[in-house]
């Protein structure tokens, strides 16, 4: 792990670390990287990946629109809203 990669990851994930946090995290990546090394010792060439441990089936529902909540209810939790719209900074000049 190098500082450039860590900067790229922060940008991708919309996060910003302090200098002290960056240093701590670099050390953590070294330790966590060992997990990958351990797994690498096992030959999984003929092993299929397992995403879920139980067999999953799609749940099919009728394609009928349901109005579960009103706009007002949904916007009760909005950090900023006006006239029924969520407010964000200007995106296009």
């Amino acid at each position, binding site marked *: 792990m190098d500082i450039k990669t860590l900067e790229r990851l922060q940008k991708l994930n919309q996060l*910003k670390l302090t200098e002290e946090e960056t240093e*701590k995290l670099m050390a953590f990546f070294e330790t966590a990287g060992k997990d990958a090394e351990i797994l690498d010792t096992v030959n999984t060439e003929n092993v299929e990946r397992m*995403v879920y441990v139980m067999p999953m089936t799609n749940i099919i529902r009728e394609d009928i629109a349901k109005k579960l909540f009103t706009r007002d209810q*949904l916007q009760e939790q909005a950090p900023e809203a006006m006239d029924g719209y969520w407010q964000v900074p200007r995106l296009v000049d």
Partner: protein
Amino acid sequence: MYIAETEKSVKNIVVDDMILTTDMATSAGSRMLDGYISLFEAEAVTKLTEAGYKVYAKANTGEFNLDLMGETSFYGPVEADGVLTTAAAQAVKSGDAMAAVTLEVNGSSARGAALAGLTFVKPTYGTVSRFGTIPAVCSGETVCVTAADAATAKEVLWTIKGHSDKDGTSLPQEKCVFDEVKEIKKVAVAKSLMVGEGAAKVEEMKAKLSAQGIEVVEIDGEELLLAKSAWNILMSAELCNNVSKYDGVKYGYRTPNYETIDQLYTNSRTEAFGYLTKSVVLFGSETLSEDNYFKVYDKAQRIRRVICEALAKVFGEFDAILAPVSSKLSYTAEEAIANPYIAYEESLYIAPAMISGVPAVVTDGVQLVGPAFSESSLLALAEKL
């Protein structure tokens, strides 16, 4: 302790801060969701209420329940008699709640129960609906029960289990019936997990099991060590995906420090998430990157199958595996906070059951892990001990 209390009754159930309720805030222990009140409630809450239980309070958790025992909560850790505990365990231990229903994400519920001397059951993955829980590590997280004894844990688990159309990972109803009690006659102790102070509790339990006429046999269990590494990778990758939606736009914390949309996103997430969550997100993101996807993430998913097959082999010969729950018998909040990655280390003990979805019962400070749908048998044994 962060517990929003309402009226008390003898059938009081406390649910943790990952389980949605419409009359109390659900914050996932995070500043991001501080004060968030859901418009709908969790399936487990609906089932409890319909059965006459009173979901009376919310128990504090660590941020997204990733940590050791709540030490990363935005509201601060919970300590009892100078040692770290979970708010859920404390509510049960104090007698305020008959049981706690919590979302087990990375072992904090099991550890909280074990270190408080309570009974805990993590049922087979898919037998309790996750609808209305805050998603963190979807392929492993499970709605669990903590109680003072096995009979109460069973009563509450039987109330909340069952198929749900609202949860794509919910098993069919016929699979959610695990009433058959099979007598546990042979238990394996994996030497690979017998490290740390928790091993002493296992030794005590071995004597108890032997006194019950149960054969206890030591096995190597080397494959179980892989579970920790694979789980840490899968847990981080899934968490990274699940918290990507928190951006400060439609709900949740929004920074006052922004002029552009990028600043709104970045500053909201940076100010709201704690250090552990940020670390897990960044590490998870790295495991999913183009360079690492096959080498790390895909590999961990294949190892998950290796572990499931290794466990199936053990359960072909043994009825359960006996193991410690944690490396120490008590922790202070200070030491947990000082080591932000302590949960990554402690996942050694909980990873085999979390990654494979098999049930685990904590009793007398140790865990008994059994094959899928063996919770009745494990709880029956815990009741006898």
